[in-house]
């Protein structure tokens, strides 16, 4: 029998990485369960009648009752929730009243449209917002800082509805530089086989550059608009993070050592704000992924924001719940992704 001491530390029942992953997955599950429960209950106590949404204004009392029972509304709330939860776990969000299709199929159709728009919007926001914020911080009080402030102020305060319509009027209506509302011109609709549901990606995969160009001409304006709004937020946050770093002693030391200004700003100060910046960008991205309802309405963009809103106004609760779960999941996943990035960028977080 071997001496226990010679075996070193007793082996844990599970490896540490497995435990950590288990905790992460567990916390996601609990969050999602809470979200589902709250949304479900709000949906049930809201003073709208899902039965009327199905049977219409003119149905007789018997038809109303049939549908009431078919929807299971005569059962206790907790039983209804348990049944719904069971279905959701199996990937069944139920049928949408409004579209006569499974909610999962609807979401698979509308979410890629939002994903495409939000991703491009975020890319634009980061590509312009981060440099603008850095320069504004470095040249604090200069004319460029003032311009950055005005740009951000306009971005914060201008109603997106107005800005979107003005953008359409000028760049589509008058100048004709961009495509009009919708994801693609009607002549090109359904021309590329859907793989991801994102037309830019699908047309590139298909090698159909005519459709790609057309889709790009349609997405560029709404994406720029969303990009502008995230730019406003990202540039202000970048500026404030950078100011904090630039006043730190290590920056002065670096300068005294004779390092170039470029290396001081980008090599030292900026490196240290990356972690904070990830949180800001992730939050902004998540906000856009919820679907910007007004942008979607103005640009006739069939995304998840207008899907959930239309469903909510029509008491299509399966669609509302399904959409909310997806948006919640996106938030949680972005949280996990930014946590992972922290570890990658900040050795202290490992």
């Amino acid at each position, binding site marked *: 029998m071997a001496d226990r001491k010679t075996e070193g530390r007793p082996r844990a029942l599970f490896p540490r990485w497995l435990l950590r992953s288990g905790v992460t997955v567990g916390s996601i599950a609990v969050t999602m369960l809470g979200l589902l429960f709250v949304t479900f209950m709000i949906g049930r106590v809201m003073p*709208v009648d899902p039965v009327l949404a199905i049977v219409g204004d003119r149905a007789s009392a018997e038809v109303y009752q049939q549908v009431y029972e078919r929807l299971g509304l005569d059962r206790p709330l907790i039983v209804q929730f348990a049944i719904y939860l069971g279905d959701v776990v199996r990937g069944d969000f139920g049928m949408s009243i409004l579209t006569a299709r499974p909610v999962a199929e609807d979401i698979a159709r509308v979410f890629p449209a939002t994903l495409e728009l939000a991703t491009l919007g975020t890319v634009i926001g980061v590509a312009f917002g981060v440099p603008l914020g850095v320069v504004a911080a470095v040249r604090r009080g200069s004319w460029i800082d003032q311009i950055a402030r005005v740009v951000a102020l306009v971005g914060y305060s201008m109603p997106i509805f107005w800005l979107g319509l003005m953008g359409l009027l000028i760049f589509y209506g008058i100048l004709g530089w961009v495509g009009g509302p919708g994801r693609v011109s009607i002549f090109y609709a359904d021309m590329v086989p859907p793989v991801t549901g994102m037309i830019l990606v699908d047309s590139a995969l298909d090698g159909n550059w005519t459709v790609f160009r057309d889709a790009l001409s349609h997405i560029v304006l709404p994406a720029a608009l969303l990009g502008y709004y995230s730019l406003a937020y990202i540039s202000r946050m970048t500026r404030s993070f950078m100011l904090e770093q630039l006043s730190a002693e290590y920056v002065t030391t670096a300068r005294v050592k004779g390092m170039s200004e470029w290396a001081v700003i980008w090599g030292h100060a900026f490196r240290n704000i990356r972690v904070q910046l990830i949180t800001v960008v992730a939050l902004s991205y998540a906000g856009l992924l919820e679907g910007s309802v007004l942008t979607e309405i103005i640009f006739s963009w069939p995304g998840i924001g207008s899907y959930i809103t239309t469903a909510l106004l029509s008491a299509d609760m399966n669609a509302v719940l399904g959409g909310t779960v997806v948006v919640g999941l996106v938030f949680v996943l972005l949280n996990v992704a930014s946590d992972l990035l922290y570890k990658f960028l900040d050795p202290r977080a490992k």
Partner: protein
Amino acid sequence: MNAFSKLMSGAALGLSVALTAMPGWAETPANMLVIATRIDDITSLDPAQSFEFSGGDVIRNLYGKLVNFDPLNLEAGFQPDLAESWEVSEDGRTITFTMREGVNFESGNPVTAEDAAFSLRRAVKLNLNPSFILTQFGLTADNVDEMIRVEDGKLKLTTDKAYATSFVLNCLTANIGSIVDMQTVMANEQNGDMGNAWLSTHSAGSGAYRLVSWKPNESVTLAANPDFHEGAPAMERVVVRHVQESATQRLLLERGDIDIARNLNPEDIAGVSGRDGVKIQEELKGYLMYFSLNQKVPELAKPEVRQAFKYMVDYEGMANSFLKGQYTVQQNFLPRSYLGSVDENPFSLDIEKAKALLAEAGVEGLELEIGVREVQDRMEIAQSLQNTFAQAGVKLNITVGTGAQILGRYRARELDVYLGTWGPDYPDPQTNASTFAWNADNSDEAQLTGVLAWRNSWDAAGLTEKVDAAVVENDTETRAQMYRDIQAEFRETSPFAIMFQNIEQSAMSENVANFTTGQAIMDAAYWEVTK
């Protein structure tokens, strides 16, 4: 060069190529009709289920019916469509239809009397929203196989009573009368649903078009049926795009990316009016705007009070200001262009007369709650009523809610006053007469929630029998006169103040001809359109 650099330079190149080579925007092709409208109300394209406006517009173009209206001559009434002719039995209860020869469904299957029988039976058996249009003839899931049958290649439809033939045939022109391809539909049956799930998103008809796709909240695309029995439509493809915003529809029209914009608000209509290449078409639609007084409120049940309220409305003021171009004054329950409709609008704003009537009834200091849906024009009307009612000494508290909220309370007979709209269900006067002026049982237990008179706790004061008599009157002119008489009495005695009839203004390219939204009676038709 690493993979990342390659990707980035590729993306930059792609972007620059795209931005310098944006496609040009031409007008829509000559054989294609592009319409911008709101289609977010479509919940199904199965004619046995669909009961929404946008869905009706699509279905009308996909399916033939036994009898149908000519889109360019609606005044002519029902005409032969898939039925070439019909005969009525001596007892007036059975109509025998002879089918048109040589018409095929989009699948290539011939249209037969069996398909027609199947379609009508299916609509009754499925018992979905619009099924009452057929079941009101005494058809039930149990008896429909006997009441609708095929003999010697002809379709026989038997009703429980000898209804006016015009009533039965008018009802068959509604979308629920669409004839579907039995073989195709049943081949797609799931769990005994008679093809309902499949037909919600597909078409199986013999109409002018077939459904290419319906993308909810995005678009509906139709392709022409070259073998359509009235001749191949000039518009080979019709695309109906969901565009929520009026301003966006206007931009699309002005850029030539669409041919017709159907939901421009009055400001945008004014904006495009008189522009080169754009014309405005106005059509009276079937929607009526009304308010009604719950007869459970004792004061409102007095005849003088009911009448007083009709003098407290600024009909002309509203129609000429914020409702201009959208509504015209109509104080009768039949929309203009219906059989038996009348133009008499005797009420106008007369506060002194209203006050005198209230005093005569001994009513003063009345405070009422009005329920309104959160729709701009209705809220504005409610505010106007609040103002004019106040002048007559009636305090009106406005409760605004979603459609489901307000309708729920209206159907439960809980609101003092309801302000809303009503649209006819099928192109026969019975559709409105049977809800405004008919109430077979006014008790709470009767739960006739679909009947407007019941919702207002009004027993219809003898009009029920007159409506029942009109619906079985076979002489069309006598029948029309009966509805005129019913409306004259209704105007004076009912707790309904009908105020306006809806107008639809469509803005379109000047080269678009023969487009109709179907006026008050029908849905939109695309097959006669030319450009």
